[in-house]
């Protein structure tokens, strides 16, 4: 049973560029959440996708956007990259039933470096 997978593992971009990160949820899960983990910090919630819609959003600017596909996989897009966007981006998948989202399981993350 495959767990949560993310691609790419590492990414280096320059300021002003755009980046797309990808996530495939654990088999049987239908909900994907994205988190940003800066060095020495705990993960911070970016947003959550369920039924191909953004269900809830954290305190991140509109430069951060996402998408969920019919197969439940998801993308995180970041436009106009800033140095401060350098972080580990984590995807977490879960199952939502009757509107309630169950425990989240995390992928290995994508390490983004902005130069």
């Amino acid at each position: 049973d495959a767990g949560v997978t993310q691609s790419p593992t590492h990414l280096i971009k320059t300021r002003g560029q755009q980046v797309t990160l990808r996530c495939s949820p654990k088999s049987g899960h239908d909900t994907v959440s994205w988190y940003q983990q800066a060095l020495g910090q705990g993960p911070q919630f970016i947003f959550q996708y369920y039924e191909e819609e953004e269900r809830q959003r954290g305190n991140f600017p509109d430069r951060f956007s996402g998408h969920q596909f019919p197969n439940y996989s998801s993308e995180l897009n970041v436009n106009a990259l800033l140095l401060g966007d350098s972080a580990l981006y984590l995807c977490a998948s879960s199952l939502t039933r009757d509107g309630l989202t169950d425990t989240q399981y995390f992928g290995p993350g994508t390490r983004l470096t902005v130069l």
Partner: protein
Amino acid sequence: AQSVSQHNHHVILSEAASLELGCNYSYGGTVNLFWYVQYPGQHLQLLLKYFSGDPLVKGIKGFEAEFIKSKFSFNLRKPSVQWSDTAEYFCAACMNTGFQKLVFGTGTRLLVSP
């Protein structure tokens, strides 16, 4: 604002020592609580969770945590640590609203010396 505090940023223990990592949360209303662990080179894994019921929760690898509502705390404990417990431990919380928007603490790095 909702927040989670972990007071110990770095903990160093010898094998067989007892472990207690502190976690306090600031939330109004019913809260779900979690401990996640990140072993070196691995991704975040769930250790244990509390949604409701018995406030003493048992997790994997001999870990347990106690939810004390009056103290807004959810401390993680293990009676006897092993070298393989060396990892970073994160406490997390979310409102019991169904969305599971997790708020994490800053983490505690545990080093267990053999």
